[in-house]
């Protein structure tokens, strides 16, 4: 019995030792896995954005871009996110929507800006989308729904534009799973708090849109793709309740109003 136990333990020891030795080698670098993944995402990002921008009308008002840029800048600066990794685009469309494409492309519709009552609400939605980008949710969702092989063949040009359009539609008009949405919400609250932006406004935005949902649902893409908004608003409030932060505004009131007027004209 003793002999058998010693022999058994020696096999376990051999396995653990081999695992330990294998762990000493940097396989990720050896197989260039990270570089390949990053390259695939970069190519997909350019491909998706290239097709998307041809189909939609990009907002050409410099002022609106500058104002949104300053919101994104503050969020990035206070959360140690490289600003260059977030590529902000404003699309002229009445739908209340914002979404992320691969390689950090963040798309915001003018309909969303028009529907936000204050800059904090808009910052909340932007923070939520940045959280998806930073947590790599976009590539995870694409890999899960479309498959890695299909994604790689997209980058090599072996698939038609139709499949790329379908993938964009998947990202712009369907939600991530509940766990990822919650993760992005909580991360967004942290981002907002670090940038000293009141996260309660983000929760209020969700409450309000959830109530409006039934009446004008065709324009509320963002809310219909992000289910259980009331529940989300509740846990955002609960999570941000005990944070003792002196909140401040990034934009002046007049800048915010000018932005709304600028987009309305």
């Amino acid at each position, binding site marked *: *019995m003793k*002999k*058998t136990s010693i*022999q*058994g333990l*020696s*096999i376990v020891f051999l*396995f653990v030792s*081999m*695992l330990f030795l*294998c*762990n000493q*080698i*940097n*396989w*990720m670098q050896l*197989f260039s*896995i990270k570089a390949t993944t990053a390259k695939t995402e970069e190519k997909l990002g350019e491909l998706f954005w290239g097709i998307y921008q041809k189909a939609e009308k990009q907002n050409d008002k410099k002022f609106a871009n500058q104002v949104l840029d300053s919101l994104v800048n503050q969020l990035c600066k206070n959360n140690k996110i490289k600003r260059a990794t977030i590529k902000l685009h404003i699309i002229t469309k009445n739908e209340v929507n914002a979404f992320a494409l691969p390689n950090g492309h963040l798309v915001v519709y003018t309909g969303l800006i028009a529907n936000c009552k204050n800059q904090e609400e808009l910052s909340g939605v932007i923070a939520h989308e940045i959280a998806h980008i930073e*947590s*790599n*949710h976009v590539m*995870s969702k694409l*890999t*899960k729904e479309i498959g890695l092989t299909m994604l790689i063949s997209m980058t090599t040009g072996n698939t038609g534009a139709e499949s790329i359009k379908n993938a964009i539609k998947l990202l712009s008009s369907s939600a991530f799973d509940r766990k*990822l949405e919650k993760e992005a919400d909580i991360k967004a609250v942290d981002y907002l708090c670090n940038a000293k932006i009141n996260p309660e406004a983000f929760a209020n935005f969700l409450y309000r849109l959830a109530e409006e949902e039934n009446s004008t649902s065709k324009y509320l893409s963002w809310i219909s793709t992000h289910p259980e908004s009331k529940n989300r608003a509740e846990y955002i409030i609960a999570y941000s309740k005990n944070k003792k932060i002196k909140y401040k505004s990034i934009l002046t009131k007049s800048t915010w109003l000018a932005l709304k007027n600028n987009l309305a004209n």
Partner: protein
Amino acid sequence: MISNIPFDYPPGEHETEKASYSYLMSLIAAIAGLPLPIINLLATAFFYLANKKSTYFVRWHCTQALLSQISLLFVNSYGFWWTISIIFTKEEISNHYIAYLITAFMFNIIEFIVTIYTAIQTRKGIHVQWWFYGSLTNLICKP
């Protein structure tokens, strides 16, 4: 790791054939059942149950084959579910994951070679006893 030890009695032709099959069973199932690691264990377990009342030589080798498959099941299942979680969840490919896969692959290769060798030797009537699994089989399987 493996040793050829004289058995209690010289096994007959029909016994060596069946005993050899117990090892081949796990190999065939491993090829047919990939990537599900439980298939080869199930195949070996069914063969073991079918020969439970067979002669001592056959039972002994069925038990050794089954025991080796059980430990491999744990190693392979962990790797299998880790892979599944990478495909379907947020989990990403890491250095630990690749190191584990390589270690598991090495153990599978060693087991594969030893299994083929044992199947051939057993067919010739030579009693092959594996390191640890042989001793464990001696404790479980009695004449």
